[in-house]
């Protein structure tokens, strides 16, 4: 069953907060649900499907249905880290096509920044221990004994991919820096962005080395907040007042250590991308705007190659000289500033990738970064870690 045209995105909302000291995780989820409903012109009673991932509190879909008072006939808590909302859109389209729901709400939210600040303050007062950035590892995870003793962190797992890419293809730190430079050019126009200052390649290279070869400015921000998306049956979308954004292509794939036959030169986007392009019946050259997961600069570079925007190994040359800057280069990306400059709520960048793609397709991005007559956009997520295990989700959206 092709999902091309089976559903539309009718609502999108990004939480304005970047540090939620006084807002709980459930409240953030509820805030973005309200925002997306208002954006769509729908009400709570219209929702009959709900989707969330591991960032939702308690029992996820059940807890959120109770808090929001939702009466549902379809739920899905597919969890694969930051790419989950991209998969949720595809799964919502499939559920709508199968007649299992008509209007699906997807939420993502969290407050890791406020939690970290509170835990650090408690540790300083001697009332608690220093916080973990992520949930404690699952003792039943079979890989744990073979990884945890070696200190895998998000930063060094992505850095190892960057170093291998440099070794195989001659990619340079200067080229990676251009990705941050492009994001900062977009973020200067976003009053909510955490990092609004335009930076240069030299600024990135002069920022402290976090895990070689990645510098601090190669990394995304850490933020609170979240976002929501509403996916609906096309017949419903046509009755609403918003521009119609159609789901045209979807793809998803996990990639892992492959039993030790490891190859860090490509990501799971090399598998999810072709599925989405085949379903959409378009090619990378047709895409006018791309939201690319930007946990680190290297993440963006890998997706550009793996999705086919350039050949494998040529990502460094592709991103150089502002090629990702809207109005300047060939492929405008993350025009809200992305995770590199704007926000990365709940340590998960998937929902904001979809939201900015929807803004571009509706013509509602900031005028300084709006792609003229943008009718075909892509959003891609990488959830997990590139060097160990991750799941990619690719979404191709069209304004009709």
């Amino acid at each position, binding site marked *: 069953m092709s999902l091309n045209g089976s559903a539309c995105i009718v609502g999108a909302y990004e939480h304005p907060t970047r540090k939620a000291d006084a807002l709980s995780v459930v409240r953030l989820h509820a805030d973005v649900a309200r925002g997306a409903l208002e954006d769509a012109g729908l009400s709570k009673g219209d929702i009959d499907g709900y989707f969330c991932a591991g960032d939702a509190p308690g029992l996820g879909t059940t807890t959120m249905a109770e808090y929001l008072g939702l009466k549902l006939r379809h739920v899905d808590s597919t969890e694969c880290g930051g790419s989950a909302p991209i998969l949720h859109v595809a799964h919502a389209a499939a559920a709508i096509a199968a007649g299992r729901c008509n209007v699906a709400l997807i939420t993502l939210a969290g407050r890791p920044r406020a939690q970290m600040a509170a835990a650090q303050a408690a540790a300083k007062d001697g009332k608690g221990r220093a916080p973990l950035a992520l949930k404690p590892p699952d003792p039943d995870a079979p890989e744990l004994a073979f990884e945890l003793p070696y*200190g895998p962190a998000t930063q060094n797992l992505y850095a190892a991919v960057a170093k291998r890419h440099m070794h195989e293809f001659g990619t340079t730190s200067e080229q990676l820096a251009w990705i941050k430079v492009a994001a900062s050019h977009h973020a200067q126009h976003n009053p909510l962005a955490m990092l609004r200052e335009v930076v240069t390649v030299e600024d990135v290279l002069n920022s402290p080395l976090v895990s070689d070869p990645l510098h601090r400015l190669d990394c995304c921000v850490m933020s609170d907040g979240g976002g929501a998306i509403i996916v609906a049956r096309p017949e419903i979308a046509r009755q609403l007042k918003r521009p119609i954004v159609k789901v045209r292509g979807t793809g998803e794939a996990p990639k892992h250590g492959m039993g030790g036959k490891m190859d860090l030169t490509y990501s799971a986007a090399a598998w999810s991308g072709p599925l989405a392009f085949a379903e959409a019946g378009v090619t990378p050259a047709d895409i006018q705007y791309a939201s690319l997961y930007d946990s680190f600069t290297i993440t963006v570079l890998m997706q550009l190659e793996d999705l086919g925007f350039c050949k494998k190994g040529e990502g460094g040359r592709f991103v150089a000289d502002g090629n990702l800057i809207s109005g300047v280069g060939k492929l405008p990306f993350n025009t809200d500033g992305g995770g590199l400059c704007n926000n990365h709520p709940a340590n998960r960048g998937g929902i904001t990738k979809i939201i900015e793609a929807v803004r571009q397709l509706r013509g509602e991005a900031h005028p300084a970064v709006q792609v003229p007559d943008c009718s075909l956009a892509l959003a891609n997520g990488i959830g997990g870690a590139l060097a160990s295990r991750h799941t990619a989700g690719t979404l191709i959206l069209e304004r009709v």
Partner: protein
Amino acid sequence: MSTPDSNRVKPAGAPGPRRIPAPRVLPESQAYWTAADEGRLLVKQCRACGEFHHYPRDICPHCMSADTEWLQAAGTGTVYSFSTMGKGEAAYTLAFVTLEEGVTLMTNLVDCDPADVAIGQPVRVVFKPSDGGHAVPMFTPA
């Protein structure tokens, strides 16, 4: 093997080198860690398809046969990629090393200046004490 002074496990909260968390061992990989305590690196091979795999499982990830066996690895390999994180004596180098047997595993590069390490460089296994648990295989330039 390990040099007790330079690799002593530091007490909680104290400054100094990164503590090596003890591996949380599942029953199917107990033999690997028992061997590590004896200074031997094991690798799993499938009797059905002949392929090596890592991390070690009862069930072969290549063909799903349950007929897998432990072999002693040569203990040598080459650096696939690596990255150094942290400052001063807390700095450590996460690495991926491809063993002679063909599998690539996550590890640390130790007893060397990572600035002198290159991808493709030959390395050999050494065993370091963990924080109250089994010895952990790590690698150093051969």
